[in-house]
């Protein structure tokens, strides 16, 4: 890797081999910096752009846009050269920590401009499009949701309390504390968020669905086509059991999005698919999934651990200090390494899963919800194996998210 990089000597304008004055740099070795830039070991010091353009990347420290960024060796987060030069505290003898994931001995590498980065960027764009669409749908859904909540105030409030107890117990338990390890904050964060939202009843927050989709996409990026169903199952666990465990991934990803229960997003996507499929058997899945929620909460710990195992470790940690921006950025980076695989997986998914209507159908979603959500909340049906049904439903959701990705990919080429 190192050889490959050093062979490729960059043609960089002389003036971009020194800082552009973003900071008042203290003792920068200009000779060394110039050599590193010419050897393609650091990104050239192009002046940062205030505005986002298609082929520019945003440095998460100075929020300016650059044609290319350096990457943390530890967590692959981008950083512009001038911000990177600021990272080492002048008088500190301690090894510098990565500003993103806090790994010590922070180091970056430069992988050049474009090509692979381009793919990553495209993914970011795709993600943004998905987000925008979902946000739009959220507004529509919210109105419906409010109506729904009014109708079933009685039934759901008691159930909320039950799950709240369990959750609280979990937060103070030793097991969670030990598993937090270095990233104590994100875990706690989520608990507060879910708690905060407890009174919102079953808040069908579409931003959560958005987050769920983001997680799916990232899982796909790292895991490619391996065990898609398995991944879907894990995701199911994650959302059905306990918000709290989702938190390390959820919170940094969602950061600014409002919290709501994992149940809500499971429900929402289920409803969506029920409606889209128009399949009576899937409707049953929706009912059972909703009703079994309190039971699921009780098993939270084992579910959470399993999720942690299946998910790429990087995604849990390295995004923690970041804001909502982290999501698209992270996607982009994963995309860099697995870009081609993802595209492949995307197409195979879209074509193989005939039951999924990838074209959307979000607009007609309300009618579906109206009819089907009520029984699901107040229902008395107790399914035999709700996990299996949820897995199925989630797999369908996954396929749909996938189909959407690939469909949009086409428009970007």
């Amino acid at each position, binding site marked *: 890797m190192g050889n490959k990089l050093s062979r490729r000597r960059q043609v960089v304008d002389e003036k971009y081999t020194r800082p552009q004055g973003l*900071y008042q740099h203290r003792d920068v070795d200009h000779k060394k910096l110039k050599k590193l830039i010419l050897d393609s070991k650091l990104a050239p010091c192009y002046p940062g752009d205030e505005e986002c353009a298609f082929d520019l990347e945003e440095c998460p420290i100075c929020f300016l846009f650059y044609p290319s960024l350096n990457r943390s060796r530890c967590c692959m987060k981008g950083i512009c050269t001038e911000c990177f030069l600021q990272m080492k505290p002048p008088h500190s003898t301690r090894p510098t920590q990565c500003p993103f994931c806090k790994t010590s001995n922070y180091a970056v590498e430069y992988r050049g401009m474009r090509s692979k980065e381009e793919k990553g960027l495209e993914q970011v764009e795709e993600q943004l499009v998905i987000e925008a669409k979902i946000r739009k749908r959220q507004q529509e859904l919210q109105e419906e949701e409010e109506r729904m909540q009014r109708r079933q105030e009685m039934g759901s409030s008691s159930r909320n309390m039950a799950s709240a107890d369990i959750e609280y117990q979990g937060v103070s338990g030793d097991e969670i504390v030990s598993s937090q390890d270095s990233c104590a*904050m994100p875990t*706690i964060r989520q*608990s507060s968020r879910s*708690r*905060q939202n407890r009174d919102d009843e079953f808040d069908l927050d579409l931003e959560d669905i958005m987050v769920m989709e983001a997680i799916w996409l990232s899982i796909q990026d790292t895991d490619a086509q391996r065990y898609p169903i398995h991944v879907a199952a894990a995701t199911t666990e994650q959302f059905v059991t306990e918000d709290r465990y989702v938190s390390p991934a959820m919170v940094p990803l969602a950061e600014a999005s409002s*919290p709501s229960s994992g149940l809500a997003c499971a429900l929402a996507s289920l409803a969506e698919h029920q409606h889209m499929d128009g399949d009576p058997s899937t409707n049953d899945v929706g009912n059972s999934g909703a009703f079994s929620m309190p039971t699921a909460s009780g098993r939270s710990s084992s579910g959470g651990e399993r999720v942690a195992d299946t998910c790429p470790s990087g995604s849990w940690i390295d995004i923690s*200090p970041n804001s*909502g921006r982290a999501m698209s950025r992270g996607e982009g980076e994963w995309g860099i390494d697995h870009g081609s695989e993802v595209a492949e997986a995307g197409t195979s998914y879209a074509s193989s899963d005939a039951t999924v209507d990838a074209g959307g159908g979000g607009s007609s979603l309300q009618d579906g919800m109206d009819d089907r959500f009520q029984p699901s909340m107040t229902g008395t049906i107790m399914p035999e194996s709700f996990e299996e049904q949820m897995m199925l439903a989630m797999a369908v959701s996954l396929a749909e998210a996938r189909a959407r990705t690939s469909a949009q990919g086409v428009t970007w080429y």
Partner: protein
Amino acid sequence: MTSSSAPSRKALSKIACNRLQKELVEWQVNPPAGFKHKVTDNLQRWIIEVAGAAGTLYANESYQLQVDFPEHYPMEAPQVIFLPPAPLHPHIYSNGHICLDILYDSWSPAMTVSSICISILSMLSSSTVKQRPADNDRYVKNCRNGRSPKETRWWFHDDKV
């Protein structure tokens, strides 16, 4: 008291200014749940209203955070304090100083106002008792000269609350 009066700090650097403007725009599009930024024309000092999360000890309570940005933000951490009355919390002193590692030693320039807010809310939310830190009186007395919490040598010991 002293902390809420105008500090004699240097103006924001260009890069700090640029970043804060972008953070503010992002906040307006996507504010962290439970927080309201009070609109002022002062980019260097944000006053943020915090609503205690439902189902926690601070439900239905509202507090104000004052965030002051140094010249070299984000390379340096902002100063974050609660304006009086500060919430009763084992890590929040009656003068509004907050014992939270990310505001001091563990600050990273990759953090944002928004991420700070979320950390503070989670700190509040995970509290099990409404009480002041054990050394509150001594600490507050030591700060009477208007010392910034950033000058305190904090000892972060509790990773649960």
